[in-house]
């Protein structure tokens, strides 16, 4: 689906809001107003914004710590993030947790992350499977860093999602650095997307600093998930331009690398695109920037007005004592899953585990390779030629 002019500008608005909000948070950090660490997504805004923008309201996200843009697109206000970071009573977690660790099951459909990486992948798989069970065509999307993709739960989660064809989109943000660890100490593979082949799902590589491309590939993956064709692994190539968090000057990152990626800044690049395609005027741009400026001032004031939490709140809310209503929202008749009328829904046709043996072909036919993510056919040709030459030499 082609983006309208208005949508193009919205993408720009969200990316700039993401960046300017982080600038504001950085200032607060320097004033010692932020209680814990502050994590920057400078240079990665296109991924958070475009992937979430490709979703519908009914879809689910689980952000990682650098996906500020994603929660903004999903409907959280900048004040929510400011209050989270400054540990205020008015924050979405009431001061019980900080950073991007918050969520909303009812309206915004955001699942709160935990600090342990990869755990969200099976959780979002469960969201997707649960929604399908309830007859709801909803998609679950989450992110993982290239570092987090080294965890065991990454494998467990993505494999399970693939086996069950869960409506999951996994965006792997390869920003080249996991804290101080470069990618060559993280994987021996050329591309992280290559792993998709091992799970029998598509792996797609995208320039993570190209907001429109990220939007396009995510939209395809979302459509695929919604159709019932299962998960997609998207590797968005990008770069972390700040340290792991504010305290980290990231001296381990070479200067040339930093310079190279500054030149690839996703916002500057998109501005150029908007100008070239005549999608905006200088006046239009200034209006957006002024709007963000005003909004952030108001948001900061609102956040600062919130007090710190009452100490005794610490003892509350460990258990649900009926304070939350737990009710499954069915979009099909629950009778369909009640015996003896339960007829496997269309997805399960021929997939009944009891029938699995019959589904295995008696003679395994060698399958022709159709998709090889990241493969360069010309290189393979060259390699074949080289081996031939070597053989001839012998």
């Amino acid at each position, binding site marked *: 689906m082609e983006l309208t002019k208005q949508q193009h500008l919205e993408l720009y608005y969200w990316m700039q809001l993401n960046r300017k909000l982080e600038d504001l948070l950085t200032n607060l950090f320097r004033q010692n107003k932020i209680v814990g660490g502050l994590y920057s997504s400078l240079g990665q805004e296109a991924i958070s914004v475009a992937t979430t923008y490709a979703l519908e309201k009914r879809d689910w996200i689980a952000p990682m710590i650098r996906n500020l843009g994603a929660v903004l697109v999903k409907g959280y206000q900048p004040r929510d993030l400011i209050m989270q970071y400054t540990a205020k009573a008015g924050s*979405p*977690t009431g001061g*019980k*947790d900080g950073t991007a*660790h*918050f*969520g909303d*099951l009812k309206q915004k459909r955001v*699942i*709160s992350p*935990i*600090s*342990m990486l990869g*755990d969200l*992948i*099976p*959780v*979002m*798989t*469960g*969201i997707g*499977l*649960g*929604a399908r*069970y*309830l007859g709801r065509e909803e998609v*679950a999307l989450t992110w993982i860093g290239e570092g987090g993709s080294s965890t*065991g*739960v990454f494998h*467990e*989660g993505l*494999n*399970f999602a693939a*086996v*069950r064809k869960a409506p999951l989109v996994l965006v792997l943000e390869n920003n080249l650095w996991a804290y101080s660890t470069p990618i060559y100490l993280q994987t021996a593979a050329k591309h992280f997307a290559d792993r998709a082949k091992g799970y029998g799902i598509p792996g797609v590589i995208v320039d993570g600093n190209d907001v429109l491309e990220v939007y396009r590939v995510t939209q395809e993956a979302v459509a695929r998930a919604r159709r019932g064709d299962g998960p997609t692994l998207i590797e968005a190539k990008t770069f972390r331009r700040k340290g792991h968090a504010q305290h980290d000057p990231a001296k381990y990152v070479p200067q040339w690398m930093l310079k190279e990626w500054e030149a690839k800044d996703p916002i500057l690049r998109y501005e150029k695109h908007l100008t070239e395609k005549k999608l905006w005027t200088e006046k239009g741009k200034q209006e957006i920037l002024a709007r963000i400026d005003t909004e952030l001032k108001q948001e900061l004031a609102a956040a600062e007005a919130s007090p710190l939490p009452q100490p005794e709140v610490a003892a509350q*809310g*460990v*258990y*649900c*004592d009926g304070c*939350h209503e*737990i*009710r*499954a*929202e069915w979009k099909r008749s*629950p009778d369909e*899953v*009640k*015996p*003896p009328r*339960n*007829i*496997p*829904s269309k997805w*399960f046709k021929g*997939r*009944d*585990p*009891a029938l*699995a043996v019959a589904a295995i072909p008696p003679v395994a036919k060698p399958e022709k390779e159709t998709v090889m993510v990241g493969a360069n056919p010309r290189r393979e040709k060259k390699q074949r030629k080289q081996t031939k030459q070597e053989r001839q030499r012998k």
Partner: protein
Amino acid sequence: MPTLTYLQAIGRGLWEEMERDPAVVMLGEDIGVYGGAFKVTEGFLSHFGPERVLDTPISENAIVGAAIGMSYLGLRPVAEFQFIDFIACAFNQITNFVAKSHYRWGAPVPLVLRGPCGGGVHGGPFHSQNPEMYFVHTPGLKVVCPAGAADAKGLIKAAIRDPNPVLFFEHKFLYRRIKEEVPDGDVVVPLGQAAVKREGKHLTMVTYAAMLYTCLEAAEKLSQQDGLECEVIDLRTLLPLDKETILGSLKRTNKLLVVHEDTRTGGLAGEIAAVIMEEAFEELDAPVMRVTSLDTPVPYSPPLEEYFLPNAEKVMKAARDLARY
């Protein structure tokens, strides 16, 4: 009332809950086609269908993770660990994701994690453990360890209906050894309530799971041989702990012995002793004593395992020491 084994009673409870509420779904390794390693879920797949009974890959993190996601949608997933020892593989999901969810961001996680625990069946170090205390130490979870068949059925129903995450430890030694009359129909045993299984005036034994039968055997022998009348309390739920029943009994007997199959250091007995020190020190006529397994892994060879586990003789000896004090 039908007579059911402990295993059948759990199966019946799960079955009735799935009949009652289409939001109840199951996932785990080999629970469908095979009916589970111990056959708790035998026949579930053909009756309830593959949408509700999910055979999974060998991925404990994914099993718990997917159950979390489903529970966020208001479903009531029941996940099985083939042996509860493998709960360690999902430790992070349980202690960090599940347990903290409601506290951190108000998202209840109404799921049940169940599986066979316990020794006495020569399963060796990785198929015999009692890992309940890792989770009793984790705020946000509930931990249930039934001993009787009727209790097991009533408690699994309560666990599934609870808005909080419940860990349900089924003692595999009891699966086919315990047979009792189990009430028909929808009888729910509330979580967090201990039960006095034998009344007595000389001392109180507090226990749970398979050790209930060890304590009952010891109590019977002590009554016959020594005229010593022991009160035996089955905790049934470890978290939340029913302090009132323990303290109420202590007020009558003034002596307390805690017996558990879990290892000694950091076991529940230590916590119960501390609660009594804080809340009922004046009631004590003797120090709180405990009979537990040794502080070692669970050994494989029968003589080693028998040496490792508490038994009626060890309980009787401790009870006599306590009575004499």
